[in-house]
């Protein structure tokens, strides 16, 4: 069934583009260590807020040359009291592919030194400039993307079982159980989700490791979303539970939990798939919003949201526009997920005409 779904998805022009775009993004994130010229924590303090490296393919004599770049020189302009960056044209640094660079562990296991693109040791290749600490924005986008693009999925994997079970139990048992459970879910939904999100994030104790923090943010994101999902599942279960095959299972003597989990919930699969693809973007957005406010992923770890935190200062956004790139990536990723979600909905529900 999944294979079929994918085939139909591929037939749709827009969805195909979206799948390819996401494929490229995830591929790049998976091989981030190799693709990024620098490691996540590499910083050159003398190179703070350097603009993107200019890459030349035609040398000073007007002849075609191997691509090369110049380093930036930092100069203080005493008249304007400004720091300006000029190209240091005294030394060429050739751009090298598949060359030795900074050591890293490929996928966290295999020690390697080769990078897809890098330059010689004294040269600096900042494809998208650097941030306040002189860290390469391009490399950090790749490492930060790993967090931003997986956190939504992880939250969904926590949230869906909870929502399914909660909605399943409420719907199947009905009566008082249903009423109490649904009142509780409604109450959770009545708290503006973003308010709840920032409060939950702010009570996280400080001094956690980054992995712990990441996991807790996943759980918080899940805590926000389960109620709405459970409510829809409950509605579906209400309509399924009186069907004959459920009664058949009952008469065999299957336990109630077994009926819910084995017989009723599988019927909601197509809804679950649609709901999942449609809600991934909202979790990506929530995480980035949270990190943008400084309550999510913390420095020195990168995420697309916390990289945009620097864009909060006017001087940064006007003089250092390269710091905004993570925002465009969030936009592209969310757009692609939305397109795929819409198409899947159309495939699974031929009656819907959303597109």
């Amino acid at each position: 069934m999944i294979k079929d779904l994918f085939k139909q998805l591929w037939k749709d022009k827009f969805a195909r583009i979206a799948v390819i775009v996401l494929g490229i993004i995830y591929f790049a994130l998976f091989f981030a260590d190799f693709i990024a010229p620098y490691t996540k924590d590499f910083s050159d303090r003398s190179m703070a807020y350097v603009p993107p490296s200019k890459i030349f393919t035609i040398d000073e004599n007007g002849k075609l040359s191997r691509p090369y770049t110049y380093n930036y020189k930092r100069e203080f302009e005493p008249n304007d009291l400004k720091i300006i960056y000029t190209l240091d044209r005294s030394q060429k640094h050739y751009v090298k592919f598949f060359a030795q660079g900074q050591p890293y562990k490929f996928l966290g296991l295999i020690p390697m030194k080769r990078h897809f693109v890098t330059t010689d040791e004294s040269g600096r290749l900042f494809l998208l400039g650097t941030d306040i600490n002189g860290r390469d924005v391009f490399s950090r986008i790749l490492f930060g993307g790993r967090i931003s693009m997986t956190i939504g999925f992880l939250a969904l994997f926590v949230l869906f079982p909870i929502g399914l079970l909660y909605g399943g139990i409420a719907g199947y048992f009905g009566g008082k159980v249903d009423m109490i459970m649904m009142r509780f879910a409604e109450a959770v939904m009545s708290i503006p989700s973003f308010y709840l999100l920032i409060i939950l994030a702010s009570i996280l104790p400080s001094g956690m490791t980054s992995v712990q923090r990441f996991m807790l943010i996943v759980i918080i994101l899940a805590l926000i979303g389960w109620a709405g999902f459970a409510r829809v599942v409950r509605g579906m279960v209400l309509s399924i539970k009186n069907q004959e095959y459920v009664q058949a299972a009952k008469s065999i003597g299957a336990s109630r939990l077994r009926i819910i989990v084995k017989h009723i919930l599988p019927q909601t699969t197509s809804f679950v798939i649609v709901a999942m693809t449609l809600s991934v973007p909202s979790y990506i957005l929530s995480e980035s919003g949270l990190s943008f406010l400084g309550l999510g992923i913390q420095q020195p770890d990168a995420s697309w949201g916390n990289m945009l935190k620097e864009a909060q200062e006017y001087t940064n956004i006007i003089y250092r526009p390269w710091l905004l790139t993570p925002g465009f990536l969030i936009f592209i990723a969310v757009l692609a997920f939305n397109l795929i979600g819409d198409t899947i909905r159309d495939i699974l529900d031929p009656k819907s005409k959303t597109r």
Partner: protein
Amino acid sequence: MQILIYILKRILQTIPLLIIVSLISFFIIRLSPVDPLAELRLNPSVSKETLQKETERLGLDKPIIVQYGKWAKSFVKGDLGVTSNGEQVSTKLKERIPNTLLLTVIVIFLSWAVGVPLGILAAVNWKTPFDRILTVLTSIGMAIPSFFFAVLLLIFAVKTGWFPVGGLTSSNFLDMTFPQKVLDITHHLVLPVTVLFTLSLAGLQRQMRGNLLDVLDSDYVKFARAKGLSEFKVIFKHALRNAVNPLITLLGFEFAGLLSGAALTEYVFQYPGLGRLILEAVLKSDINLVMASLMMGAVMLILGNLIADILLIITDPRIREGSQA
């Protein structure tokens, strides 16, 4: 009369909801390891008496259930305690809530005024280039992170100097005449409204389009067409009424989404609203303020849903009949 009874019932239903919401919020906040009076204790301008009064009011030396009882009692009376600066929480909220309401109400009004007609147009011109272009545009509108869009607009404002950056009023606001004041606030509202409007317009247009397409497929519309009614009459007299109902249900959710989206937008634009208040309170771990603004957010949301439901009762007679059965 029946309508009134049903509305009354619906209003009464919100009371248990509010109680559960307050319980959840209270326990979440008290679960945090933060000492609720820490900031107050460190603030030299806060007297010992105020501190003592707060400890007593919150019942901090008693079990958590008693604390909740005390809190709920004073909340109902309207006493929300003091902020870490020693200000009354209630005055702070009175200052901020109207601003957030102003923002969200304008956005809802605008997005309905534009989104519904655009949804109808798209549905009527289904699968034409016009519809496709609108779909592309709404996809884009739905995918822009609100805070990022706000940041981009800020660049625009700073570069062109056409719009004031941040706040709701200019510094010389108090010296202005009334029309000037209105103009000044409008000027400040343009950017935050644009951000939220784009987000909610996209969702609303899609919903309207989808609903109308579903309804246009139904038998009674086919029948109306078969009768030989003009297309105009079919759409506006028959189809539209049913297509709008789900939107009214969504009004409540839209309000919820706007409150959340507004928090980030308010933060970026330094807009003095509830969202920014709660954010500042959270960052300072000002417990009284966090708790009160969380409750106010929930109250606004519940009221929004209530209004949506009441509107639905008025527009859709089927719901009234369903309630009697």
